[in-house]
């Protein structure tokens, strides 16, 4: 599947720089040592606004949930309908979720609860983006 391209902005630059090096990082508040995703200018827990790091993740997770998209508002993805859209929970903190198209998993045949690992795939403009694949036993 070809996702829309990405034009990193100042705020998101470290996330995308890490992705370009095939590393997954998640915003972490240094005040309360709490991961936050989606990232934001302030910590949704303690309200701190200038004490963040982009913390490296293990790249392991599990499939928490999924739906199957048949009618997508994003033009570039419409040719791939229907497609899986899963929610991954990170092993580093199961409260942190990431979306995944689960490349290689048949449509609507998603093993909820299965272990996954992060991979990186190119978007339409070549920027690498974190994706997830099921770990074979």
């Amino acid at each position: 599947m070809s996702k829309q391209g990405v034009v990193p902005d100042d705020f998101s630059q470290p996330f995308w720089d890490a992705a370009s090096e095939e590393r997954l990082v998640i915003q972490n508040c240094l005040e309360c040592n709490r991961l936050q995703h989606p990232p934001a200018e302030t910590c949704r827990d303690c309200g701190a606004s200038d004490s963040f790091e982009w913390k490296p993740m293990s790249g392991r997770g599990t499939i928490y949930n999924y739906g199957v998209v048949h009618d997508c508002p994003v033009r570039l993805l419409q040719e791939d309908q229907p497609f899986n859209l899963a929610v991954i929970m990170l092993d580093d903190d199961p409260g942190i979720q990431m979306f995944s198209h689960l490349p290689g998993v048949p449509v609507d045949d998603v093993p909820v609860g299965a272990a996954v690992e992060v991979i990186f795939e190119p978007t339409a403009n070549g920027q690498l983006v974190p994706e997830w694949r099921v770990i074979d036993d």
Partner: protein
Amino acid sequence: MTTPTAPDAMYRNDEGLGIWEHRGKVAAFGIGHGPTSRRWDGRPETCVGAITIQALRKAIADAGVAPEQIDGLVVVPVTTTGAFWEEGKPLPMDVIESFNQTDDPLDGVAKLSAEWLLANMPELTNVQFTMYGPGCMSNALNVAAQAVGDGLTHTCLVVKSWHNFEGRYYQSGANVEDALPGTAAITRLWGGPASYGTALQFAEYCRKYGKTHEMMAPFMENSRRNGLMFPEGYWAQHRPEELGREDYLAARWIAKPANLFDNDIPIMMSGAYLFSTAERAADMKQKPVYILNHASSNARPRSLTPTLDEVEAETARTARKIYEGAGITADDLSFENMYDGFSLFHQFHLEGLGYRGIKFGEALDFYQTDISIEGPNPVSPSGGNVGSGRSRVWMHTDCIQQLQGRAGARQVTGVEPEVAVSGGPMPLGGNFTVWSASPD
């Protein structure tokens, strides 16, 4: 005059606030609706501003007050969630110039300000108080109730309208671009439609409790049936079609397990109410429907999308706030009338309330029993957005009409209409109003 947005302090967000200080002292009297349509046809007399004026005038006449007695106006300024006037598209000057204008040319066409309404309703000569309750009618009702209770206004109109244009929701802007800005891209590259989040919660619910999407069919059928008895609604006015089990289950998927009918249909509409102090009841044409409480939920998920645990914790918390401030329990509810757009989260609201003793995971079984307006356990007698189109308003109108005994063919007959609660939209994030036929 510049209209302020309601301050956070006007909403009842917290547990432990006790009985609402204005319990039973504020009441709804008049109701007015503008005509519905699927999309705006471009004429001045059908634009969102015009149908809003119609709704407001009907609410005034319905209550039987003179326009100059009205001293307050609470407005939801946003009139869509997904039909925006495209940048660069020529302005409809013939329509804009048919009305008295404000600084914003799209006022009355793609949004609504209190100033635009007052400029085009010259009969409202005495409005001293205006305020925005942004979001839904549910927000505006909370604001109007608190404002009347606080004495900021004595006779107050509250209005919410929706416009809809040609084209489909969300199929423009960033969604048709070849690239996204990096911050948005972190969460938006995957292309979930609007109902995807609710579909996820419903999928988790079904897995946890062993339920299926098919079990929604009786709720959908009942909702459309009730909607077809709602003469103010879209389906009743334009497409009087029942929604049978087979029709529902055969519909195409949008974000499985959410199908086409689980997504409410965008329409043009306007709904308005007239609120006043309960002591003015003797002057009014309609019976008062007393407000016992209003409550809000402003919870947010920890991460991208609410988990079922987060949903259930918050609907239960919301119910505690609703009941606490009103001084009632679930046993007092005559019927259930919470929000349903998307249909697949209606059961979360219902279970949170504990309507008829229902616990988490039991609502879909409850849907298989008699939930009709004739039975002892009415569910969504308004028919909601499923029954009348996207407005987030029908449940409120229905509660008032039911308690006034003038819901027409929809009038509940298996229960005495005494106390009801309506509100939404989301299980995490909504506003709720408790209505009563009596002030105590």
